[in-house]
């Protein structure tokens, strides 16, 4: 870490009111880090088109979040968006790339292949089953490939994680991430209860209705794929 973050907390906390000051510093630094996530231009396969190209495009525009400054050099990048399958031969290179990035660094794993190996798990002699076998991952964005909106959700989740999770007292250690997918005041139990009710209510399935749903109805409204639950896991320390 930089000189400031190393020396500052120890020096400040002895001063009366230093604790508050350090906390303020935390807030400002975390805000800056969360608002300025420069991704590394790194993509191995299909997800790269969706994650780096389509999201950077005019429709979705990654720049709105201040994350369009894609750095080709890992030294200057903050965010490693893992887009695409990782194979055995790539694994050491990926690790090197991660090591070359300067702290603090964040990793978003996008797509089924990067999370678990995806369609290439079985009978494959090369595919690594999940990038988290190689490097710590902060946010998982499932999909094959995920839609750009899902990446944004992942990015916002990461921003929230950074804003709430880090402190300069212990640089490099990230607190357990929050479940950002849920709005405030709603817990996982609420959702599970609601799902149970729905299941009971719709216990009887109307077969004819289900078949009709497969055909295109006349009045169509475009529905977006709503499955954007970015799954988060603890990342461990990146040191």
């Amino acid at each position, binding site marked *: 870490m930089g000189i400031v973050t190393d020396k500052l907390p120890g020096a400040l906390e002895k001063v009366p009111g230093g604790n508050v000051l350090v906390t303020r510093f935390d807030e400002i630094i975390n805000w800056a880090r969360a608002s300025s996530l420069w991704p590394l231009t790194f993509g191995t396969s299909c997800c790269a088109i969706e994650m780096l190209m389509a999201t950077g495009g005019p429709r979705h525009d990654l720049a709105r979040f201040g994350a369009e400054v894609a750095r*080709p050099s890992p030294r*200057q990048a903050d965010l490693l968006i893992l887009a695409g399958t990782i194979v055995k031969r790539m694994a050491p290179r990926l690790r090197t790339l991660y090591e070359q990035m300067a702290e603090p660094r964040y990793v978003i794993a996008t797509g089924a292949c990067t999370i678990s190996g995806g369609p290439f798990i079985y009978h494959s002699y090369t595919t690594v089953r999940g990038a988290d076998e190689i490097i710590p991952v902060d946010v998982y964005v499932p999909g094959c490939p995920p839609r750009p909106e899902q990446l944004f959700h992942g990015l916002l989740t990461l921003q929230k994680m950074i804003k709430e999770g880090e402190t300069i007292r212990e640089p490099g250690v990230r607190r357990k991430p929050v479940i950002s997918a849920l709005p405030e005041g709603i817990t996982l139990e609420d959702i599970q209860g609601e799902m149970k009710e729905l299941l009971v209510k719709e216990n009887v399935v109307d077969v004819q209705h289900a078949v009709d749903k497969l055909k295109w109805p006349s009045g169509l409204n475009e529905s977006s794929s709503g499955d954007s639950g970015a799954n988060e896991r603890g990342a461990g320390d990146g040191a």
Partner: protein
Amino acid sequence: MADALLNQLSLTLSVHTSDVFVAPAMSLADRASRALESGVWGAVLYIVIGLVAVLTAVSVLGLVMSYIERKVAGHFQCRLGPMRVGPHGVLQSLADGIKLLFKEGIEPGHGDKVIFIGAPIFSITATILLLAIVPLAPGIQVVDMNVGVVYIAAVSGLGVMGILMGGWSSNNKWSLLGAMRAGAQMISYEVSLTIALLVVVLFSGTLKVSEIIESQQQGWWIWRGHGVAIVAFCLYVIASTAELNRTPFDLPEGESELTGGYHTEYSGLRFSFFFLAEFANLFVFSALAVTFFFGGWLPFHVGNYEGFNSVMDLLPPVISPMFWFGSKCATLIFILMWFRWTFPRLRMDQLMRLEWKVLLPIGFANLILAATVVLTGLYFFPSAT
């Protein structure tokens, strides 16, 4: 001993605060010379304050420019640019700056540490020195030496040293390639840049920057120069784009070819120095173009058309220089950004061919033409006096 020194210091300070810093009618340049005459401490104080002011200006300029660049790029590309950090993303560059400040600084294992650390400082020093001579408004100029143009030519050549040092010391072949490209490119285009400026020096008959501006009271050189100045201005814009390493001349960085070019190995604060220097240079080169070709802070005047001139002078004298200088500068910066987001990149051999076989002969011919114009006194809008 210490008391005596302190006494002397407070004495000098009190004398010179009243003398140097309070008197409102004096130009900064006059204050500088006064401060230098008045003793060591006054000079030191003046230099420190001047440098701090310029340093602040560089960082603020860097932040503002990078925000503007991203917004302009966004709108060129049918998108919005930064939106989320502050209203319309205005705090985006601030966040970037703070983040870079607190980011780990990595030094490559087998690199040349001293040069590696020195390179970004060298780079930004060149920018600061260059900014010191830019006249922002009447009297608002840190140094105004009588060999200003020579100073500009000398100092703007320093920037390439930082880049060469950075590329060399990184122990990375891509960096080295980028640095070598930068060296070849910037030194070549330096020639055209200086030749373009010399045209104006011939016209105005002085090397002092403030006097060059004064000489444009009757009309900016770009109008008065019989087309010679327009050619010189075009040469200047092309050469300064190359000096700034911006597309279509961004070969030293050339992301798609050399990953990051000379700053591949830099991270955190050191990278931000390069970053700041680049964006502040964008302002400096536009400001110099405005000074030399568009009359600096002077309003738009046409010689002997008093009615028109008085309309142009309507703005109150406090705002007028700021408005004219700012708007001219902004236009030029916008044009440079327009270049960047439209053109593809040249190849190295094409770049060198353009300089040595096209721009330089045109520049020399132009210089000779300018000399002829000056000798025969064939300006447009000849001054009334």
